[in-house]
């Protein structure tokens, strides 16, 4: 029987994967990887603000991630100019967060827990956050699923069918902001995007339908989390990065398998 902290870590990772699979698939389909990164990086500023104001960390990260998400949506997304502005915003927010923390009087906080995650220290309170947030994301995606897929495939087709692609995109960036808040404790701000993209990319190699890819991404994510936790204990490595390494390992395995199969 594994230790309780390990069970909590596993449950948190599984909770995150439940949302990250479908959401990560959309990130891959719509090429929003950089938006995911920007939102995640900005959340460090949220951590700093939360520490300074003694608000819960989750409230701070959700707020800043949402603000970032809205800013990104307003920029319109895919153009080159928007790309540059995104880079400016994301890294400025990250740096500002790192600087701001040092100004908080009497505070000695090790930010690495937020940069790289601290999944082995997940509490029951964190678990409620992770699962609650994940289920909200999942519900949001399920509710908009058809419209999201149509808008992802072709914006004109979606418009002609009476959908508003901007609204669908907004649903996605809100989900992204939420997943950042959920995942920051598990893999940390710097590696959240990895956990969105790598399992989805792995699942892509074997999926024939969008739904299969989303479910497959969740499955790959869960295996990555459990594998990473095992590796972290076995080799005494940091848990968050170990999870991402496990995901990357599965991706390479999938590629090799796909090549052999073809």
């Amino acid at each position, binding site marked *: 029987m594994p230790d309780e902290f390990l069970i909590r870590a596993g449950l948190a990772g599984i909770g995150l994967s439940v949302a990250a699979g479908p959401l990560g698939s959309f990130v891959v389909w719509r090429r929003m990887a950089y938006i995911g990164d920007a939102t995640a990086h900005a959340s460090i500023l949220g951590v700093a603000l939360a520490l300074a104001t003694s608000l819960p960390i989750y409230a701070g990260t959700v707020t800043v991630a949402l603000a970032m998400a809205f800013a990104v949506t307003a920029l319109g997304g895919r153009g080159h100019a928007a790309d540059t502005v995104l880079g400016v915003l994301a890294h400025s927010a990250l740096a500002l967060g790192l600087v701001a923390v040092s100004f908080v009087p009497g505070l000695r906080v090790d930010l690495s827990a937020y940069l790289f995650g601290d999944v082995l220290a997940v509490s029951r309170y964190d678990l409620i956050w992770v699962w609650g947030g994940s289920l909200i994301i999942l519900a949001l995606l399920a509710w908009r699923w058809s419209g999201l897929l149509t808008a992802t495939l072709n914006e004109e*087709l979606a418009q*002609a069918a009476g959908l508003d692609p901007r609204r669908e995109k907004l649903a996605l960036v809100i989900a992204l902001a939420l997943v950042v808040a959920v995942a920051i404790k598990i893999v940390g701000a710097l590696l959240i995007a990895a956990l969105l993209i790598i399992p989805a990319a792995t699942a892509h190699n074997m999926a024939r339908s969008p739904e299969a890819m989303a479910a497959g991404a969740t499955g790959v994510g869960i295996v990555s989390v459990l594998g990473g936790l095992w590796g972290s204990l076995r080799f005494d490595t940091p848990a968050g990065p170990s999870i991402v390494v496990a995901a990357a390992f599965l991706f390479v395995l999938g590629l090799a398998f796909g090549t052999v199969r073809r």
Partner: protein
Amino acid sequence: MSGMSGEPGVSLIKAAGLTVRRGAVTVISAVSIAIDPGEIVTIVGPNGSGKSSLVRALIGLEPLTQGAVIRREGLRIGYVPQRLHIDAGLPMTVRRFLSLPRPVSDAEADAALARTGVAALGRQQLSRLSGGQLQRVLLARAILSDPEILILDEPTQGMDQTGSAGFYRLLAELRAETGVAVLLVSHDLHVVMSASDRIICLNGHICCEGAPQVVSAAPEYRALFGLGTGGALALYRHEHDHAHDHEHDHEHDHDRDHGPTDHSHRHHNHEAEDAG
């Protein structure tokens, strides 16, 4: 200039004085057009003449600078966009695609695919389809909503002549079976669908419009356009309602955008006159 036809109130879509500007560029100006039930209308014009913008404006996808579009209440539009870039990262079978965003039954999906001649493709991935197959799948999706009008933006782009002819024939059959109106966009100034009731030539504004003049008797034309197409392709005598000073100095820049094609277009027209 006016594209109005039929009696007021019966048109499926009616637009009056449409002007679309993007920044300082006027894409289309003062275009009036009406599509009646069961009509096949082809809009031709060179690249950049505002065809797609006009179609998008008619559907309500393009913000209007001036003018108004009136769609009959509850009008069911089957829309086939100009390009559907399928990202290979998104796995999607043809069957799944037909259920987006409105789920349809397997029977409906099979019937639609069979009707557009791609019955066997249901399990294929969208990203693996050829251009012609994809257009037929898009058409199948469009007819699933039992539309009163089909709007297709350059559906035969990238198809060979036999493929285009087959596709046009299919549209004509659909119209005959269901009475659906068809609004087509084509950049091909001289080969248009012979079943068209009206051709509208657009170049920022409506240059001219009227019934297509089918040149079918002369063997030269059959050899060039008619052979093996079952008469689905026709020549349209491209006549403007204003004089041209010089063959290559067109005031609407048809030639610049359409150099080589336009040469042959004129060439064939001359032969038409010779033969006729």
